[in-house]
């Protein structure tokens, strides 16, 4: 039997699971309210698309993530670059953000509602902060983790501080930043789900809450799958960005141990393990 083509292979196990799910439901041994069949979920999708509620919900949720995560990523990048390049900025910004990272956002949502009011602001803020923290962490780690010998080389060529930062440090940090971006979008979606589950008026979360109220398990399952698909979509967008921006770096041992830099790097800064694009989850690049 010929092996299946490469494009299809990663999907085979998923297809098998769906087929298994359909088979279990078709056997009649499971209550359709507990586990709706794939067919039922598809029918619900069709109905909700036809009456407009699914597209509207997608638009609302998508906009929330675009605006919230967009703002969060932008601020995270800015703070990360500043903290990476300036010791003063790092001292000011790093500890508070590390503290924020430790706070679970399920706990924070009611507090945000009290502080910021009801409606969109607390939702957007939650998504923004959820996107900001991983972006900041990856950016500051990437900038500070750049090989100090590259800095020396830049100095030897006559690059001043500003040009070293723009022409050497930031490009060298880009792989780490993109990994952070992927993580940030992942957390942003989780934050969105939480934000939309509390007092949602529109969006996929509202659809989900309504479905729970009316015990429409097929719609509940549909919403969960929609969230998953949206998360995969944004992940694929970032991976496309990675392919466009990054040079694939072959991961592998170097031929000999690297000689130390002439200058001594700051011992207080832990050097993070920067993820290569080729080793982060999501499969190899084509």
């Amino acid at each position, binding site marked *: 039997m010929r092996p299946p083509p490469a494009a299809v292979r990663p999907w085979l196990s998923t297809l098998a699971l769906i087929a298994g799910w359909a088979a279990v439901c078709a056997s009649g041994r499971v209550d359709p309210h507990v586990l709706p069949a794939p067919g039922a979920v598809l029918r619900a999708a069709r109905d909700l698309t036809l009456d407009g509620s699914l597209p509207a919900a997608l638009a609302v949720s998508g906009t929330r993530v675009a605006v919230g995560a967009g703002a969060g990523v932008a601020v995270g990048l800015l703070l990360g670059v500043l903290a990476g390049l300036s010791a003063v900025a790092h001292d000011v910004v790093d500890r508070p953000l590390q503290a924020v990272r430790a706070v679970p956002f399920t706990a924070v949502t009611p507090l945000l509602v009290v502080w910021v009011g009801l409606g969109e602001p607390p939702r957007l803020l939650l998504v923004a902060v959820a996107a900001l923290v991983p972006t900041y962490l990856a950016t500051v780690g990437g900038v500070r983790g750049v090989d100090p010998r590259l800095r020396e080389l830049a100095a*030897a*060529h006559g690059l001043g501080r500003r040009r070293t930062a723009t022409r050497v440090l930031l490009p060298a940090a880009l792989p780490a930043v993109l990994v952070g971006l992927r993580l940030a979008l992942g957390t942003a979606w989780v934050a969105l789900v939480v934000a939309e589950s509390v007092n949602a008026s529109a969006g996929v979360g509202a659809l989900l809450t309504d479905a729970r109220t009316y015990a429409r398990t097929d719609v509940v399952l549909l919403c969960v799958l929609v969230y998953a698909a949206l998360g995969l979509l944004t992940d694929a967008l970032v991976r496309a960005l990675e392919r466009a921006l990054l040079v694939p770096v072959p991961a592998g041992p170097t031929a000999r141990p690297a000689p130390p830099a002439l200058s001594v790097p700051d011992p207080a800064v832990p050097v993070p393990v920067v993820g290569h694009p080729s080793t982060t989850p999501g499969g190899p690049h084509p």
Partner: protein
Amino acid sequence: MRDFFEVRDVHVMRSGAHGPLPVLGGVDLRVGRGELVCVVGPSGCGKSTLLGVVAGLLRPARGRVLLAGRDVTGTPAHTAYMPQQDLLFAWHTVLDGVALGLRVQRVGRREARARARDVLAEFGLEAFADARPDELSGGMRQRAALARTVLQGRDVVLLDEPFGALDALTRLDAQRWLAATWRAHRWTGLLVTHDVGEAVTLGDRVLRLSGRPAVVAQEVAVDEPRPRTPGVPDERVVRTVLAGLGVVPDERAPDEREPDERAPGLPVRLP
């Protein structure tokens, strides 16, 4: 004329676990125009530290670096410095990477690329101009890094173990090529190597640094006329340098040696 650039009484300290550690303890040297001086010494950071001081990347605790009479201590970008690792930027093609020095000096992109192409052709890498550094072998990357170094157009060239990563045969080839290119361009500078034979093949003079705190413990002129044959350095000079390290040919008969020294084919006595 021995004073195109000069290193005067340079002391460098490093912070150690129990206080400051001296690395360089008063290094003096002078290099004349067109001279290639090779620096050898025990492994550790002394030789690279010296190059770092000459390159202006490290400010010494004491002492000065003078270039054509001007004090350039602690000021980078007066010399063309090539570190041990090629450090070619992964996000540039080889062409743009080599052109880095010119772009830094505000040369226009088209002209910088044209000049980079010329240098790459001279170094035998013109076919790889549009490749990425990770597509090149180690030897090719070193050559590209050297191309980048010399394209800066500075008079003084500092090379830190440029052939350390190359296999023995490629190394001989590279030595012959460097000797010819050095003469053709009339560069001045220092080459650090742990290989005494290489130092004697390439250098007009060989300086040996002692262990920490390092000083110039020995200076030997290499009079052999050029072009020299790589791999067959002047025996006499090599022996002089090794003698300075306490490594001498063992002239005793086998039965005069201690039991543990009777290994056949052991031509030297180590200190």
